[in-house]
């Protein structure tokens, strides 16, 4: 069969213009040049098609052919995704390395899913069952953590004519036949889905469950719900990537999709080397068994970077459709936006703010809107969630950057990273007075149940102390610390304690890297207890210096090192605090 093709007329970096591609469609995949580089049509004008090419176009020139495929840029969805590492257009990087060496060379193609691997297949429907799109027909053991559901593609409905019996099958094997109105359809273990089209759901519901991350400042102060959206903007060196890594390690989602979009190669290596070693705190299995990595590093072709977040979120939606709670981390969406800007510039579109295309904000929001807690398709009512957490890298840390502003308009949680905190090695450098979460109210019930009835009050109190601290510090800066009342001095001390003993968390210290909700509650209670007793004793005549120099404060500061399963040790510290103050009061009484 002769392939349909057109001819290249212009090459400018990643943009190629070709003429006379038969039946050229928007977002159609094409192969460019005799080297057959991947590309996607992004503009059609009369007989000219503009193509963004996902690989380096050096050595490509006018007169070479462009082959059309007739299909949109799609990903393969099926067993074998978990534990894989793909580039922005779902080429398996591990297979490429094994076959072609340590550098990514152009024009290579390998199927994303291993065609030769056998999967253990367990049918869960019978011949004659009537099924709709979204129903599960079988389970495949993908990893010990993930039961992969084989789903009837959306839009299809009909009666099962054949279903394969339990046994081992490869991804291309036909495992079911369905009789639909339009004839008999074969189902294999995998199918394809175009990345730019969201997978359908029945409806969306408001998120009401906490995505537990084990990061104190996040879980306690600025939480994200399962199915929620969050963004982490910050200048370089403020710890965006560490926050993203921590979340992908410890968040209690079933599946993690990590998209390294235009970032450092070594960061992906870090994830690749660490995740197989790290154990999921809930199941004890390696974290890699629930993770999919998309790596399009900064030096890889810029157009594939644009595609990488869509590739990632489509895979995420696929696992959501199996009923899992999925979390997607995108690091960094600024690089994605810059890729859009570069293509837009080469298309000579009228630029909007800072040279970004005018459709920047709408693209950003349509990406984040693919998150959510949803009711799945299919006959049974099943709920699942997809949370999206995007890092943003604004130039110079300037939050007026169009990407930050476009993102803030759509996301509901804002973790503002601050470089002066990072300089003082206060990590995570999430600045408490600027960050916010709009899920606090919808999660109030959840908190009461999981952490304690008084939790909400404790947190409100802590926040108000931190706010008060910043006012008092202004005053200190103007007139010196001597002018503060002893009670205000205690506020400053408590605030310092909240910052240093609670908010600061060392991601690289085994004892501190993950804090359970119960432990967070106990830690906060300790600080609250000390604060209450300190104010109380001051009013009864105890000297401020005696309170500040109480040795029990060292115990409070070390409480973060108490393991999550030895929380009874907090009882002893509480006792010590109470004792210390009783002693102080007695000294006052005895003169």
């Amino acid at each position: 069969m002769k392939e349909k093709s057109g001819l290249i007329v212009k090459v400018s970096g990643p943009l190629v213009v070709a003429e006379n591609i038969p039946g050229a469609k928007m977002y159609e995949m094409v192969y460019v040049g005799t080297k057959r580089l991947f590309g996607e049509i992004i503009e059609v004008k009369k007989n000219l098609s503009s193509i963004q090419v996902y690989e380096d176009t050096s050595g490509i020139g006018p007169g070479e052919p462009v082959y059309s495929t007739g299909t949109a840029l799609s990903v393969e969805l099926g067993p074998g995704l978990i534990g894989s590492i793909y580039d922005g257009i779902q080429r398996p990087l591990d297979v490429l390395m094994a076959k072609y060496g340590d550098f990514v060379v152009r024009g290579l193609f390998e199927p994303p899913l291993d065609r030769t691997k056998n999967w253990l297949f367990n049918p869960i429907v019978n011949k004659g069952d009537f099924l709709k799109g979204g129903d599960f027909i079988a389970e495949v053991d993908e990893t010990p953590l993930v039961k992969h559901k084989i789903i009837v593609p959306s839009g299809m409905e009909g009666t099962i004519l054949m279903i394969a019996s339990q046994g081992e099958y490869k991804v291309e094997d036909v495992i079911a036949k369905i009789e639909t109105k339009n004839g008999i359809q074969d189902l294999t273990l995998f199918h394809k889905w175009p990345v730019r089209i969201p997978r359908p759901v029945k409806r969306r519901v408001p998120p009401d469950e906490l995505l537990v991350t084990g990061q104190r400042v996040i879980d306690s102060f600025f939480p994200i719900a399962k199915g929620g959206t969050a963004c982490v903007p910050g200048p370089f060196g403020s710890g965006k990537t560490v926050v993203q890594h921590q979340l992908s390690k410890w968040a209690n989602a079933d599946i993690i999709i990590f998209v390294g979009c235009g970032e450092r190669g070594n960061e992906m290596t870090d994830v690749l080397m660490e995740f197989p070693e790290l154990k999921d705190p809930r199941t004890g299995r390696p974290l890699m068994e629930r993770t999919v990595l998309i790596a399009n590093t900064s030096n890889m072709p810029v157009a594939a970077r644009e595609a990488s977040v869509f590739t990632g979120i489509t895979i995420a939606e696929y696992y959501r459709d199996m009923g899992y709670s999925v979390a997607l981390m995108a690091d960094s969406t600024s690089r994605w936006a810059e890729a859009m800007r570069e293509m837009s510039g080469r298309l000579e579109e009228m630029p909007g703010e800072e040279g970004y295309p005018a459709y920047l904000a709408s693209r950003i929001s349509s990406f984040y809107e693919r998150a959510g807690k949803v009711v799945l398709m299919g006959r049974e009512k099943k709920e699942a969630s997809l949370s999206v957490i995007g890092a943003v890298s604004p130039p110079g840390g300037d939050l007026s950057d169009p990407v930050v502003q476009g993102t803030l308009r759509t996301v509901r949680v804002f973790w503002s990273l601050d470089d002066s905190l990072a300089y003082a090695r206060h990590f995570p450098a999430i600045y408490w007075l600027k960050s916010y979460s709009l899920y606090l109210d919808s999660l109030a019930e959840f908190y009461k149940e999981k952490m304690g009835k008084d939790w909400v009050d404790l947190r409100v109190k802590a926040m108000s102390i931190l706010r008060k601290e910043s006012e008092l510090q202004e005053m200190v800066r103007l007139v010196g610390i001597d002018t503060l009342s002893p009670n205000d001095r205690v506020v400053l001390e408590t605030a310092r304690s909240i910052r240093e003993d609670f908010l600061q968390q060392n991601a690289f210290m085994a004892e501190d890297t993950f804090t359970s909700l119960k432990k967070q509650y106990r830690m906060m209670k300790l600080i609250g207890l000390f604060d209450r007793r300190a104010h109380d004793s001051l009013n009864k005549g105890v000297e401020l210096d005696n309170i500040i120099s109480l040795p029990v404060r060292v115990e409070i500061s070390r409480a973060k090192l108490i393991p999550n399963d030895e929380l009874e040790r907090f009882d002893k510290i509480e006792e010590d605090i109470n004792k210390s103050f009783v002693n102080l009061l007695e000294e006052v009484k005895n003169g």
Partner: protein
Amino acid sequence: MAKEYITTRQIAGPLIIVEHVEKATYNEIVDIKAPDGSLRRGQILEVNGDRALIQVFEGTSGLNLGETKVRFEGRGIEIGVSPSILGRIFDGSGRPIDGAPQIIPEKRLDINGNPINPYARDYPAEFIQTGISSIDGLNTLVRGQKLPIFSGSGLPHAELAAQIARQAKVLGAEEKFAVVFAAMGITFEEANYFIQNFRESGALERSVIFLNLGGDPVIERIATPRFGLTVAEYLAFELGMHVLAILTDMTNYCEALREISAARKEVPGRRGYPGYMYTDLATIYERAGRIKGKTGSITQIPILTMPEDDKTHPIPDLTGYITEGQIFLSRTLFQQGLYPPIDVLPSLSRLKDKGIGKGKTREDHSDVLNQLFAAYARGRESRELVTVLGESALTKTDLIFVRFADEFENRFVRQGIEENRTIEQTLDVGWELLSMIPVEELKRIRPQFIDKYLSKYIKKGTVQNAS
């Protein structure tokens, strides 16, 4: 024999447009013969039908329409390499300028290279001892890292980079090393300083040097670092050497990039730099690292001078987003006569955590590092208050931190240009300084390390007094 075209139709800035071209391809290299007979090189930036847009490395002065002859080479820019490349000096376009004959290439490599497959990378985790406390102790460099020096005009970045090149070593290992030095638009004196330094330390015969000096063609600077890094990749991943690549000055590189972008009338990004500068810089910086199963490595130290010492300027800003940290030089410290004038607070090494600790440096390293940072940050903040309000405005503890900050700068950061401290010495100075601080304020250090290390330095009685 390739065709020669005399169909140049337009000359503007560093760019020429040639028409009626057959079979030109993107990024292809061209030879240009000026009317006076001189030979120049160029590269195709865009082909549109039979029109090719070409950037001329040596500049377009003296070119005209009609007599300028352009020949297309049918390949990208390449450099011939062989083990005998060590010890050689080239100009910014890879032509030898040391008087010795051309090397006989074992193979020719395209200077744009290919991206390392992220899956093939090995995580850098081997501690490099530079002998400089503020780097080893607080912003540890590891093998395969890219750690730029953010400097300003007039600051001693050349001295610092040369000191690192001279002293850097991996503990307990004797391995093949090499230095690749790529100069872009720096002065003759500065380039000479490096070469002299390499000569004195005996590193010259293990170096490969590419020089594009201030007076050399501006557009050539786009190619210079790529020549250097292509050679570095050859030495590291084919000959198994540990390569230290010094690129200076990246600011000049970015300005060349801006010049071309302006000549092409592209939509400018911030401060007139092109929107793709991030991607372009990444194709340079990301060529550092290690590869699984290969002995060699590339450690990159790019140097850039921040215009007006402003780190939010696009050049340092985009660099910081790509590199794995930065060493930040401070004009204030320099004016106080401090060498090296490294401001440790905005400095950072992202890869330090895997390169330090037991078996690599010392078990207490990570805790000491965090505590020194926190204490110095607090001391600096309090010191600012003292200048506004006087000492009486501070608590006793805060005053101790002010003293700590002063001592830290004088004893930890300050050291001689020839002084080569071991990591043990560095950490011990750290502990000695920390002993000034009341023990209950040492919250970042695990208790077992306080017991083991701090006791050496505590003068009798201070613990009781402090608490």
